[in-house]
Every structure is written in structure tokens, then in C-alpha cells.
């Protein structure tokens, strides 16, 4: 087990290094100095408390959607609908935040629970469709993404219209995950209590997957549903449960985006955290701690690319290109693993008989 974890970390880091090297190549080819480029990219993500806070704020929803995708993956399901689930989570959070007047200490837990339930409902339905009618979750969750998109498109202007037709009103301070303590500590950045939510989620998901009967059954169903059925595990119920849990995580991610990082909802956008969550999970080899690490790394790139662009002539798209390249390397991790295997064999094989 220990060796396995190490190997996956190694593969992930290799993907990152290769991606960064490729990024350096892009910078060099476009006539820029990669060293200054990377200096400003990482400085932009980490050079002072405010930027560090923004990086963490950027990473927060990614941690949760990454967990959502990773959790589903571990149980044999491909949740491509984290975007829609996050959108519904955000919509529910915004709706409660704009309509319910309660003290912050009561309102925030209520918002988070409702957002989790909203996301869970959005994934529960594909779970039911898969369990009862064998509808593939990739298809149904993509459709649910668009239902969430249009539902938001209608609901926000109809009930929560702000100063623009395409935006909701701003939520009150009581309904926001931002808190003066954190904002001041990180010199006025977007960082918010969603970070704690995501850290707790990392911890809980890790416990559920590795230490509980529920996790054992969910993974058994994911690895081999026939063996699970043989062992008396209710396969359908566990598929639905897995989707609902994944949806709840993405729903929480939506809440931390719309009532944490931001203070209003715009229509006409499927949040990119949904699909970026897939990348985060992929780079993390679906391990909860790995998700934490890779989400923070993506957060650095996301918040640093603007600074890099401001200080050099390198276009911010290079940041996205690096992310995309890293994903390619992570996706072809089998090749990296094989490369490592042949390397260790050549080194260690001779001494061993």
C-alpha cells in the first residue's frame, strides 16, 4: 500500500514536471524567457498573503469538485456532471442567502446543507437511471448539466434579478462564506470559510473510502459489480448512494464558489470548476489527499497567470495550456508508470536473483 501511494505521487509529480517543461517550451517558442515567465506565474500565485489567499480561494471549489469526481471514479462511476451539480448547489445557496434572514451562525450551515442536498439530488437522478434502466451516467449527467444551466438561466432573472438582467442580487454578509477574520488575515483576498469545508470534506471522503463498510461496498461495486452482487451487496442502492455523495460534494463546491469566492450568480455559464474537477481528480489518481494537492497547484496556475501576463508578454493562455498539457501527461500515466518500471528494473534487477 505504501509503495502504491508513493508510485502514484511520483507519477503525478512527473506529469507536473513534464507539463511545466512543455510550458517552458511554449514560452521559448513564442520568444519569451521561460524562467522569468515561471517566476511571475508562481509569484503571482504565492508572493504575498493576498495572492496566496486568492490561490486558496480559487482552489477551494476545485477541491470539492475534484473530490466529487474522484469519489465517483473510485466507485466505478464517471461523474461528468459536477458542473451542473455545482450550479444547482450554488443556485440553492444563493436562493436561501437572498430570501432567508437568519443570523450567520445558523444561516451558513443551512446554506451548506441545502447546497449539498441540491447537488446530491442532481446526481441522484442519474444514479437511479443507471441502477434501474442501465442509462450510462456520462450521458445522463451531461444532460443534467444543461437542465441545471437553463434552470439557473430562468430562475435568476425571474426571482433574484440584480442590477443587471444577467446577474443575481448580491448576497448579504450573513449569507457569505467570507469572514472578516480570514479576509483581513489574507490582506483582503477572496479566501473564505469554504476552505475549511473543503478540508473537512477531504478528511471525510478519505475516511469513508478507506475505513468504512460503506466505502468497502462502494469500491467493491465499482471494481466488480458481479462479485459484489454475489457477496450479497445491494449493487443498485450503492450506485445511487455513490452518485448522491459525489453530487453533494460538487454541490458544496458550487456553494463555495457562488456564496464564497463570489457574491452573486451570473447566468449563461456552466462553472468551469466542474470539468476542471475531472482534471484535478485525474492528476490526483483519485486519492483525496492528492485532490487537495493538485487543486492547490491548479489554483496557483489559475491565479498566477494574470500576473505573469501583466509582467511579461506571455499570454495568460499559456497557463491554461500548461494545465492542459499536465492533464495529458496525467492521462497517459500508464506510460510514465511503465517508464518507471523499466527504469527500476534495470537498476535493481541485476542485484536481485
Amino acid at each position: 500500500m505504501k509503495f502504491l501511494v508513493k508510485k502514484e505521487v511520483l507519477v503525478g509529480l512527473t506529469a507536473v514536471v513534464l507539463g511545466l517543461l512543455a510550458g517552458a517550451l511554449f514560452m521559448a517558442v513564442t520568444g519569451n524567457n521561460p524562467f522569468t515567465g515561471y517566476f511571475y506565474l508562481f509569484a503571482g500565485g504565492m508572493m504575498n498573503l493576498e495572492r496566496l489567499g486568492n490561490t486558496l480561494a480559487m482552489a477551494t471549489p476545485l477541491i470539492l469538485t475534484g473530490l466529487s469526481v474522484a469519489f465517483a471514479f473510485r466507485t466505478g462511476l464517471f461523474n461528468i456532471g459536477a458542473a451542473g451539480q455545482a450550479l444547482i448547489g450554488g443556485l440553492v445557496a444563493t436562493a436561501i442567502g437572498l430570501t432567508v434572514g437568519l443570523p450567520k451562525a445558523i444561516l451558513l450551515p443551512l446554506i451548506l446543507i441545502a447546497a449539498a442536498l441540491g447537488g446530491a439530488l442532481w446526481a441522484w437522478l442519474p444514479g437511479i437511471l443507471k441502477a434501474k434502466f442501465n442509462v450510462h451516467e456520462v450521458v445522463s449527467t451531461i444532460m443534467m448539466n444543461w437542465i441545471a444551466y437553463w434552470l439557473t438561466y430562468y430562475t435568476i432573472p425571474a426571482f433574484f434579478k440584480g442590477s443587471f438582467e444577467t446577474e443575481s442580487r448580491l448576497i448579504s454578509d450573513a449569507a457569505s462564506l467570507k469572514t472578516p477574520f480570514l479576509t483581513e488575515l489574507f490582506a483582503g483576498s477572496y479566501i473564505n470559510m469554504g476552505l475549511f469545508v473543503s478540508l473537512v470534506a477531504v478528511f471525510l471522503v478519505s475516511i469513508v473510502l478507506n475505513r468504512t463498510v460503506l466505502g468497502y461496498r462502494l469500491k467493491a461495486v465499482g471494481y466488480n459489480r458481479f462479485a459484489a452482487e454475489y457477496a450479497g451487496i445491494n449493487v443498485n442502492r450503492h450506485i445511487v448512494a455513490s452518485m448522491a455523495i459525489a453530487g453533494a460534494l460538487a454541490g458544496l463546491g458550487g456553494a463555495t464558489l457562488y456564496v464564497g469566492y463570489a457574491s452573486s450568480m451570473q447566468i449563461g455559464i456552466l462553472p468551469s470548476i466542474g470539468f476542471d474537477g475531472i482534471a484535478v481528480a485525474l492528476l490526483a489518481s483519485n486519492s483525496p489527499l492528492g485532490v487537495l494537492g493538485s487543486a492547490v497547484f491548479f489554483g496557483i496556475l489559475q491565479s498566477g497567470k494574470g500576473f505573469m501576463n501583466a509582467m511579461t508578454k506571455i499570454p495568460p493562455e499559456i497557463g491554461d495550456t500548461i494545465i492542459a498539457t499536465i492533464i495529458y501527461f496525467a492521462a497517459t500515466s500508464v506510460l510514465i508508470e511503465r517508464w518507471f518500471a523499466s527504469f527500476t528494473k534495470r537498476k535493481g534487477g541485476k542485484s536481485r536473483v
Partner: protein
Amino acid sequence: MQPVVEMLNIRKEFPGILANDNVTITLNHGEVLALLGENGAGKSTLMSVLFGLYQPESGTIKVKGQEVKIPNPNVAGELGIGMVHQHFKLVHNFTVTENIVLGIEPTRGGVLTLKQASEKIRQLSKQYGLDVDPDAKIEDVSVGMQQRVEILKMLYRNSEVLIFDEPTAVLTPQEILELMKIMRNLQAEGKSIIVITHKLKEIKAIADRCTVIRRGKLVGTVSVKDTSQAQMAEMMVGREVSFHVDKGPFNPGATVLQVNNLSVRNNRKLPALKSFTLDVRAGEIVGVAGVEGNGQTEFVEALTGLRPVDSGHILVNGNEITRATVRQRIDAKVAHIPEDRQKRGLVLDYTLAENFVLENHGLEPFSTKGFLNQDAIYAQANRLIEAFDVRSGEGAKSKARGLSGGNQQKAIVGREIDLNPDLLIAVQPTRGLDVGSIEYIHKRLVEQRDAGKAVLLVSLELDEILDLSDRIAVVCRGELVGVVDAKSTDENKIGLMMAGVKTGVAE
């Protein structure tokens, strides 16, 4: 005469395992050479080296006296070496012809021209007595026929040396006889054949010489004519093997399993089991004999809750379980050694320890209030590994996928017996295993019987049924042909009943 193939002093290592250690084999022109060894002895590795799938660390390969390097299967093909793998490599929605030409498609101006190929295949099929229709789709033909398509693939490519990897593992007894005939035809036409196997009976029937490998090392090569099955078994296992299982006195107790007029449908919703009635008592082994696909699979699935029952009743210890869930049946003390160990019996990506608690992970002491108790799980795993001699690289932490078939099966048998069931349903418990493992598992099943458990044994191996059972139920087309006393019957009588002949049945 010069050998067709020589593999001299081959050495092949995998991390932590020496798969082939200084192994030498020779194949003469026009002979059938059997490669005998237990699971994991290194037979398949050696043949994969010859077929170019692996590169040996040292040693030389000579084809017709010429030293060669075989970096990949294409080169092997050019040297006239072909291989039928245990799991066929066929595209199911392609026709026979399309499958055979795959990779060397005949084209004219970029357009596929299959007519000539199809004619050549028809001719080859006739020449070697294969009886294959070149235009049939793979998904529509039987497993035995699919194997012949694989053979035709080699013949179409003019292979001179044919390697068969466990060719009989997937075949019914009838298909095995036909395969033997085909192999003799191939031999008569001048082909040289290597058969990887651990079935001694088949070696006796078909092979000229037999090379034995044990734990990666060459034990020796013998002439099949002059060597008895027992001698070959001893060479393979390294100790004397008994083919007969000693059973205690027959003392049947109360009826444990009662099946009354059970009818079940198959996946295509057609009747698979028709009004089937059978009892199994404590302290007896009842064997279910029949040709594959005569309702045995559906019968077992109905018994274990994996398939709904059309009509009829199933009772265990007098309690109705006809509509019970799988879980309820496990709780009713029914254990099940499944037909397909990799599909049903194990979660291959789980460790051995995790697989040992597949059914009872939710119970104390393996979990408390929903949390797994790793200490108890590992303690149980180590106990079962010890008790059932499950060998693996890293003990309880090994992934089930990495175990050899025999050890996977031992793990399942151990797990099910350890559930301490009243009724043990064992389906093909020794399929694909070597004699050492077979002997071991047979002993364990008989132990259960002697300990007063009811054992239902479903098997396609007639020898196994005859050896272990106290009573034998024969099934044909989903109907019970009859139940006979194992002592007063023989292979011929059962064989007739398996074909559906009811006359002369002694109840």
C-alpha cells in the same frame, strides 16, 4: 533429423520471480510435444518467449537450426510460429473470414477483397477436417468453433509450428474429442505442435513427448508412451499425488436443501430449468452432471439468489428461501463457490485480506458501527492463508489479481468453508487447476461432507463427479434425467444419461 524449434537455456525473470531458469526444450518435426507444469510453473512464459511476447534474459532460440531473435509476434509469424491463446483474440461481430485475414487483409486498389480468402479458408477447413463456415459471424458460433477459427488463422498464415495454450480449458468433453482429432490431422499434414496443459489424460491421448517444468526449472522430458500418468504427475508436483479421495463412511443426516419443481429462465427469457426436483442431505455430496449449458448455471444462480425463480420452491433447513435476497441466503448458511472465480468470486483489485471478508465485512469483529477493523481483517486473512495454503507474493496484502488461478480458487474455497455453511454449493471448483490443487480442493470438499455438511457439486468434469459424489443427479436440457447412486454407476451410464437417455436408470 533436425528439430524444428530449439529453445536452449532460456532464462526469464520478472520482478521477484524467476519464471524460467535455464529451460531447454526441443520440438521435432511432425510431433506433438506437451509442456506440463502446475499453474505458475512458467509454461506460458516460455511459450510467450517463443512467440515474441517476452524477451529472455539469456538463452538462444533456434528455428530449423538457425539461431533467431524474436522481438515480437510478427517475427514469430514470419518464422512460421503460430499460437492459439487460452482466451481467443477474435472480433465478435466480424465473420470468420474477416477475423482470419485481420492484419494481412487482401486488397485490390485499397478495397478489401475477401472472396479469395474465403475460398482459401474453406479449402483449409476441409483439408484439416475443421468444418468451419467462413461466412459465419463469430458471435453466432460455439466456443469450440471459435478455437478452430484461431487454428485456421495459423494455417492461413502457413504456420509450421503451432502452440496451443490450455486448449481444452474452455471446451466440453465432446469438443475436446474433436480437438484431439483435429490435432492428429494437423500432425499428419506435417505440422509440429506444442500443447501447454496440465491435464494428464489429454497428454496420454495426444502427445508424443512431454517436457515437465516445475517452478521455472526443467524437470525432464519423457516419452509419453513409456510414462504413466502417476509418474508424470509426480514429476510435475514433486511428490506423489493420489487421484482418489478417501471418504469417510456414508452417514446422511437430515435434508438440508430441498428443491421442488423449480423452473427458471435463462438470459434470453427461455426456460432453462424445467420443474427440477432434488434433495441434498447433511453429510453427503450430491453431484450434478451434465453437458455445459443444460441449465446448471441457471440452477445454481436460482439457488444462490442471483436469478429470479419462475416457479417452484427452494428450502434450506426447512425454511423457504425461494425469493430471498443473496444476503438472506448467506445468512441462512448457504455458501457458494462460484463457477467463474474472476467474475463472481473475487474483486481482483482488492487485496486477499479484503477478499476474505467479501461476505462478512459488515459483521463483528471485521467492522464495528460501520468502521472496518483492519486488525481483525488481517488476522483472519493470515489464518486463512495458512489454513488453505494460499500462496502469493505479499501474503494478505497481495492483490487478488496477482495470484495464480489455483491460489485464487483456494482463497475462495477457504473463504466459503470458513463461513461454516450448512449447504456448500461448489460449481466447477477445480476448473483450470493443476493436479496438486485439485487434490487439495477435493480433500477439503470431502472434509465438509465428513463433517456433516451438505455439499452440492456442479461440474462438467465427469471424473470429478464420479470421484467425489455419493449420489449423482444428471441434467439434460434443463430437466432432471435421473438420480443415481455413485457406487453403482460408471462413466458410460452417466454419459448416456447426459445425452438424455432415461432407460436403465437405477433410482
